[in-house]
């Protein structure tokens, strides 16, 4: 290659649960280069002790998310050019709103605990010995259920939401979006229980419609509207059942 090698000025958060700080690295810039590649380059060539997490490399597993220049992102699908300005500066930190394990790897356990707590699990209404139910793909409930189904639980929305920051009980956008999918799934055997859970403390009513979740979701999903859907549904139910 005849072109002169350019470098990125990368500042990476190092540390663990107890303390940490940013450390600078100079990383060669390439034509096709993602943030994950930058981080990998540092680990492979500059500092072998750098910790981060990834698996699929293509935006399917949701394990590589980090804060990049202040915003949460999938690092495997974020091209350096999209985030590094003319000054070629990058600032990379572990995902917000989650405990840190080490360096860039956050502990996602609270996120999944809440996912489960929000009732984010199918309750069967049939068994493996029954035929698969005929469900029209265009039915209204199915449409609503489908809207959030492609969530890969990457926690980007969770990291973007300041309500999560302030309120540790808040279930957060992804878990609530999952609950919205479930209450619209006619196959689910116990939707009332899910409605109950999202109506309790920590539930959907804590959302302030900040919209950071929807804005940052790399999958173009819309947890904010799903949560609004839950608010409507729970309100309607509340009056129907008689307060």
């Amino acid at each position: 290659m005849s072109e002169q090698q350019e470098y990125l000025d990368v500042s990476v958060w190092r540390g663990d649960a107890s303390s940490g700080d940013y450390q600078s690295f100079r990383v060669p810039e390439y034509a096709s280069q993602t943030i994950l590649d930058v981080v990998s380059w540092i680990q492979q060539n500059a500092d072998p002790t750098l910790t981060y997490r990834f698996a699929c490399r293509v935006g399917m597993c949701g394990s590589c998310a980090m804060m990049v220049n202040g915003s949460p992102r999938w690092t495997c699908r974020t091209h350096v050019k999209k985030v590094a300005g003319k000054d070629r500066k990058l600032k990379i930190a572990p995902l917000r709103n989650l405990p840190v394990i080490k360096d860039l790897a956050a502990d996602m356990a609270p996120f999944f605990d809440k996912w489960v707590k929000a009732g984010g699990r199918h309750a069967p209404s049939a068994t493996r010995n029954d035929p698969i139910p005929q469900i029209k793909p265009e039915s209204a409930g199915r449409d609503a259920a489908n809207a959030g189904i492609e969530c890969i639980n990457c926690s980007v929305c969770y990291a973007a939401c300041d309500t999560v920051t302030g309120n540790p009980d808040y279930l957060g956008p992804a878990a609530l979006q999952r609950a919205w999918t479930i209450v619209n799934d006619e196959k689910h055997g116990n939707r009332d229980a899910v409605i109950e859970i999202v109506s309790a403390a920590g539930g959907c009513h804590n959302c302030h419609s900040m919209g950071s979740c929807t804005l940052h979701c790399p999958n173009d999903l819309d947890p904010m509207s799903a949560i609004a859907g839950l608010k409507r549904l729970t309100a309607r139910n509340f009056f129907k059942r008689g307060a």
Partner: protein
Amino acid sequence: MLNIRLYLAQRISAMIMVPFVITHIAVMIYAIQGGLSAAEILGRTQGSVFWFLFYGMFVAAVSVHAAIGVRVIVSETTGLRGSALSLLSGASFLLFLFLGARAVMAVTVSA
């Protein structure tokens, strides 16, 4: 920290306040324009059952609404939770209600 009851209380009180706030702002704009003097306003409000009910409900709604609002802000910014938080929001509700009631009395009852 908010459950559906608190949420609905806050939203419903907000809805109730919408006409009140609009009227209130309109009156103030009108008043400040010089169309009405303060004395005239008071002249009309005092002894009026309508304005008593108007401001009475306004104060009731705003007390509920603002107390829950304060509850949320305090909890999210200071991390206060549990019974201490409920105590605080209850107290602020009573404070709003008490001061508001006094003001309503002053504007609509006492002569």
